[in-house]
């Protein structure tokens, strides 16, 4: 072990919701982790470090959207050595990140919050929007109903454990055609279908790509260009209503109960699930 005092302990944990938008959807998880570490330094946030020869900042990630997939709802957690106002951290961290990696929400956890409140456990499902350029809405609608009517839809994919075949139908809580937010704006006149889907987090993970593979198998739906996929939300799934709750709400309640008024720190433009968020507009601007 290196000489010197032990690293300062974590006395506050911040849970952070961030978005990756526009051309920055092509960042990989490793790219984001480097960018966040640098932004934390630039913003002067008192992040805690691990002990050992090569101390690492205590920043952990709950899952991560794949390279090329945009997201409005990614989550990470930062351990701090001094308490900070979450609203200020939201603004400062956002300013220190390149445009397109945007901090949406920050919630503080009181010291001593146990493992039982692990954020990862609350991320039970994701809501996705998949933009299929060159696909007629009628074809997409037919494929969707074929998929929903099937008892099981098995697809094959290369996973970390090798080539696997698994059912993707069971993980799907909702799958429907959504209105095209760009229609009528003159942005595009080409045919385009938008799918909205809510998919449970399972093992192996069922990704929007797998659902598209399923749609191809069921109804020969074959988009001519790569789909533009955006994660709109992730959180606890209410099986009755099919709605996703905000996974940070329980922490806000805990903070409020503890008399900590710094619980909530939403960004000024927090998009709600299902909203026509500006993802495509951002990418089109580049």
């Amino acid at each position, binding site marked *: 072990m*290196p*000489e*010197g005092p032990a690293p300062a302990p974590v006395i506050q944990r911040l849970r952070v919701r961030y978005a990756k938008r*526009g*051309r*920055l959807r*092509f*960042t*990989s998880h*490793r*790219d984001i982790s*480097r*960018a966040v*570490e*640098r*932004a*934390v*330094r*630039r913003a*002067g946030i008192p992040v805690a*470090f691990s002990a050992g*020869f*090569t*101390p690492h*900042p205590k920043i952990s990630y709950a899952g991560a959207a794949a*390279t*090329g997939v945009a997201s409005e709802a990614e989550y990470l957690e930062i351990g701090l050595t001094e308490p900070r106002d979450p609203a200020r951290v939201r603004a400062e961290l956002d300013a*220190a*990140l*390149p*445009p*397109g990696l945007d901090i949406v929400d920050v919630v503080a956890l009181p010291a001593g919050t146990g493992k039982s409140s692990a954020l990862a456990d609350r991320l039970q499902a994701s809501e996705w929007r998949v933009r299929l*350029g060159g696909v007629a809405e009628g074809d997409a609608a037919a494929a969707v109903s074929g998929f929903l009517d099937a008892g099981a839809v098995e697809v094959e994919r290369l996973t970390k454990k090798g080539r696997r075949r698994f059912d993707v139908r069971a993980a799907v809580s909702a799958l429907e055609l959504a209105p095209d937010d760009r229609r009528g704006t003159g942005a595009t006149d080409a045919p385009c279908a938008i799918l909205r889907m809510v998919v449970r987090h399972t093992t192996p993970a069922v990704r929007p790509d797998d659902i598209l593979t399923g749609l191809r198998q069921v109804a020969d739906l074959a988009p001519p*260009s*790569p789909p533009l996929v955006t994660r709109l939300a992730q959180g606890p799934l209410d099986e009755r209503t099919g709605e996703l709750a905000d996974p940070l709400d329980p922490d806000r309640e805990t903070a409020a109960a503890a008399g900590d008024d710094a619980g909530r720190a939403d960004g000024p433009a927090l998009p709600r699930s299902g909203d026509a968020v500006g993802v495509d507009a951002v*990418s*089109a601007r*580049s």
Partner: protein
Amino acid sequence: MSVESIFPRLEPLLPSVQKPIQYVGGELNSQAKDWDDATVRWALMYPDAYEVGLPNQGVQILYEILNEREGVLAERTYAVWPDMEQVMREHGIPQFTVDSHRPVGAFDVLGVSFSTELGYTNLLTALDLAGIPFEAAERDDSHPIVLAGGHAAFNPEPIADFLDAAVLGDGEEIALAITEVIREWKDEGEPGGRDGLLLRLAETGGVYVPKFYDVEYLPDGRIKRVAPNRPGVPWRVEKHTVMDLDQWPYPKKPLVPLAETVHERFSVEIFRGCTRGCRFCQAGMITRPVRERSITTIGAMVDEGIKQTGFTEVGLLSLSSADHSEIADVAKGLADRYEGTHTSLSLPSTRVDAFNITLANEFSRGGRRSGLTFAPEGGSERMRKVINKMVSEDDLIRTVTTAYENGWRQVKLYFMCGLPTETDEDVLEIAGMAKRVIQAGREATGRKDIRCTVSIGGFVPKPHTPFQWAAQTDHETVDRRLRLLRDELRSDKEYGRAIGLRYHDGQPSVIEGLLSRGDRRVGKVIRAVWEDGGRFDGWSEHFSYERWTASAEKALADEPVDVDWYTLRDRDEVEVLPWDHLDAGLDREWLWQDWQDAVDETEVEDCRWTPCYDCGVCPTMGTEIQIGPTGKKLLPLSVV
């Protein structure tokens, strides 16, 4: 007329290529200025992959300096990988800048920074994708001026036909001067068109326009003469030297990439130039004289650079960083300032002496002491006299002993193989030196886990050095000597396993040699290699020796010269060298004398601390050595 972004066409294709993040831009501190507000527009290219090109200091400095000016815009472009090249060809997407995704062909200047000759084929890919004709003579007023800079531009002759212009030396002032010439020419209605502009640039004496010079050859293949072919064009073109580095504290806002790159750190040049006089070192010869950045400017740049980037590593760059006159105060000041902030400091190029261990200790306070690197370059005392690397084996042993005593466990030693006058015995002495290093380490620490790595590469003679006249050693001999060394190290039971050997085979050095000392006829070889699919020649997985030799045989079939003629041949004093009309400031007679001294194993002192030996740079260029000490200290800053 505004220029459209190609991004909407590019975006749907990105999921199908490797590491798409390298093509999207959007880095912290990158800029996207308005196209129509600018009158002079530069596309700056580093002709290698993004991960190598992005950290390049030269490109970053020019990018910032040009963009600071009103009415001037600079964007960056890099070599695209072969998978992306194929996708771009299929969909008709031109070479683009990563900042605003504009087609490179729409800019006024395409400035390409060549650190190495192995980027030449990548230049051709970029020109082809940009729709710019390869031959400068075939371009018209609609095409950008293709301008080369960087160390390889000190002999741009192999790519002379592909260039409109080249500049030698420091880029800061000349890039702005060229910008002003272009602005005036445009304001006046572009008189004389493309050639009118090139002539204005050539007349300054600081911009080389290859097509304004004719090369005549002798029947045996040597050059007869190189002469300007129109009035107003000077016989010799001079290099540029920035004299006061404190006036140019760039980069101020370094680019912070999202993609992973080869250097993830903030680098500050602590001085330019080197007068140690190592005879193999082109950088040391062409960047003279020594010009230090002051301790206070270094301190301010590091402070600002960390704030702007969030990098956790700071590199103090130069050709021999421990030679800065106030390096001890710089090291201690920075180590004090950043203690406990998880900021690491590194000193990439250092000489062999015990003082360096003190510096290394400062830089590793509280952290792990893993490896130290030294570069004796030559294995024998005799060899080191030839190359003027004045380190004795006893110096080295004293240095590594101190290092091991201070807790360092591994030493890396750099050498070259194939140096002028080298024998098998010179190379085999490396083994003896490595064994003494291990022995010293074991004695100093009483431990067995001492390691030493010998890293050895093939020597390539470079223009503007005393070895510019020397025959390069053939690759068979280099490979044979490396095998002898490997066998010698392996045969030793007591030390062999503590010594690692890293080496490359000799063939790529031959091609580097061809491109380094080639003349305009080599351009045909580069073009033939490119047409046969040659790309990314600096990457061993892409480089093909067979492609180069086969292409050279075809392209040079009608010439009295071949690859051996360019590489393996000793030149005599009177031969006209392809770069003789390009002035690095070095006196040709001094270089020749230094070459004779090399053969005689005579050493030359460093002129920073001993009297001038008349290399010629200071009087020719109107420059002088700029070194401290300033006597100032780094003030402690409050660190977040």
